[in-house]
């Protein structure tokens, strides 16, 4: 109970930042729309490649892919907040309290998950307006939340361990594209070289992309496990950080 309340109080910090920076809120809203329109136009041709499974509209295929991409890329930057907190002294002021360490991570992850869910709803709405069919909206939301939560925790852990903006920016830019393109987010893997299909099996972004289109317990379970594991990692990172102080 205390843990939940503390996490909630910590998350309020981040929600306030969101609410007080209209520009940031605007970006959060506009970004998914641009992505959908842009990728939609660009990839329209993809579904016409012979062998592209399913005869459905290209947007039906693309919508879950865009949600997944957006979830990872939004979540990847979450750790920047902790780096700022470490530099400003806010982190130390929170760490001298008896509060549960997990609350610091959960509070920040909660804000990321809520933003991603809002963005997902926007994408679903726009896709529907554009005449797409969203077969598994519930699963899509669940998968987006799990993927965002895992990557937000990983980003937080990495931020606390490296304590440097440059390191986190480097890691995110290095990983984001490979993770996306070594998955079925935008492209059916049956059309990709065999090795990509093999690699994708170990890629959480692909788990999400597959499960978002065809909800299956195995991959959703894997994502849930990853969420717990990365939350544990982020919470442990505080102890490593404190040892270096």
């Amino acid at each position, binding site marked *: 109970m205390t843990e939940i309340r503390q996490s909630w109080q910590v998350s*309020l910090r981040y929600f306030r930042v969101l609410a*007080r920076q209209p520009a940031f809120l605007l970006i959060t809203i506009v970004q998914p729309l641009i992505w959908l329109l842009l990728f939609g136009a660009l990839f329209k041709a993809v579904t016409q490649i012979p062998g592209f499974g399913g005869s459905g509209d290209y947007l039906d295929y693309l919508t879950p892919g865009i949600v997944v991409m957006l979830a990872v890329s939004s979540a990847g930057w979450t750790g920047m907040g902790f780096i700022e907190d470490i530099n400003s002294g806010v982190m130390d002021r929170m760490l001298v309290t008896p509060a549960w360490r997990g609350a610091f991570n959960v509070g920040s992850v909660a804000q990321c998950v809520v933003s991603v869910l809002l963005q997902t709803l926007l994408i679903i709405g726009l896709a529907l307006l554009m005449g797409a069919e969203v077969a598994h909206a519930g699963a899509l939301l669940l998968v987006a939340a799990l993927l965002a939560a895992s990557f937000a925790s990983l980003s937080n852990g990495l931020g606390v361990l490296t304590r440097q903006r440059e390191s986190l920016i480097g890691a995110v830019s290095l990983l984001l594209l490979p993770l996306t393109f070594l998955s079925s987010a935008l492209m059916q893997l049956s059309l990709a070289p065999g090795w990509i299909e093999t690699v994708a099996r170990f890629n959480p972004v692909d788990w999400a992309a597959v499960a978002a289109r065809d909800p299956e317990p195995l991959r959703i379970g894997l994502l849930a496990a990853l969420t717990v594991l990365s939350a544990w990692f982020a919470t442990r990172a505080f102890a490593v950080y404190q040892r270096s102080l």
Partner: protein
Amino acid sequence: MTRTVFENAIEAGGLVKRYGEVQALDGVDLHVEAGTVFGLLGPNGAGKSTTVRILTTLTRPDAGTVRVAGIDALKDPVGVRRAIGVVGQKHGTDPDATGRENLVLQAELYGLRDRRRVEELLERFGLADAADRQAKTYSGGMMRRLDVAIGLIHTPRVLFLDEPTTGLDPEARTAMWAEIERLAGEERMTILLTTHYLEEADRLASQLAIVDQGRIVARGTRDELKAEMQAATESDTPPSLNDVYLRHAGRAVAA
């Protein structure tokens, strides 16, 4: 209500801390009697903040023992955290949150839901009017007062202040001194403060220690330190605290 009786509010023995090549602490011993104000003096890089970080459970020593408020800080850091308040050398205020929000968050992190304490502290530190302004709009003095209010939110028994008045103008500094005296007097708090200002240590602290290069090079009451130096130098006039400091730390410091 019964309270654990303890002679020393802070007891540290043989603290050692290394950062790679840097030997930040090289065997620091400290004893701070409950209900007193203890001043830790020393030049830049002496190891004051490192000592405070260890005593406040922010980090662990490579060797040594720490008891704060009668609790073993290495075995039960959470227990120590409940008993202590900390104001770090850096600001701890969240610049995007208002003064009130900063205090409410800290209260919640200690499991306190009563908001009266928040209002009381805003009032006492002259922040009531600015309570709903984001902390980044505060002046340096207001920010520091908010830092101290945050450290006091749960009415700690032992308070750590790492350079509480650095960067404050003379007026704000005098007000902060009065507040520290009030906490030690009325609220019977044990206070350990670090400072570069000898005047501050002279006025507030009944016991002093001078740290240099990770070691305590002198300790005692002001008068003991002065008398000891007077005897050692066979001087006719008692030295100032500045003389004592220069003799032990061997470097100049902002007076």
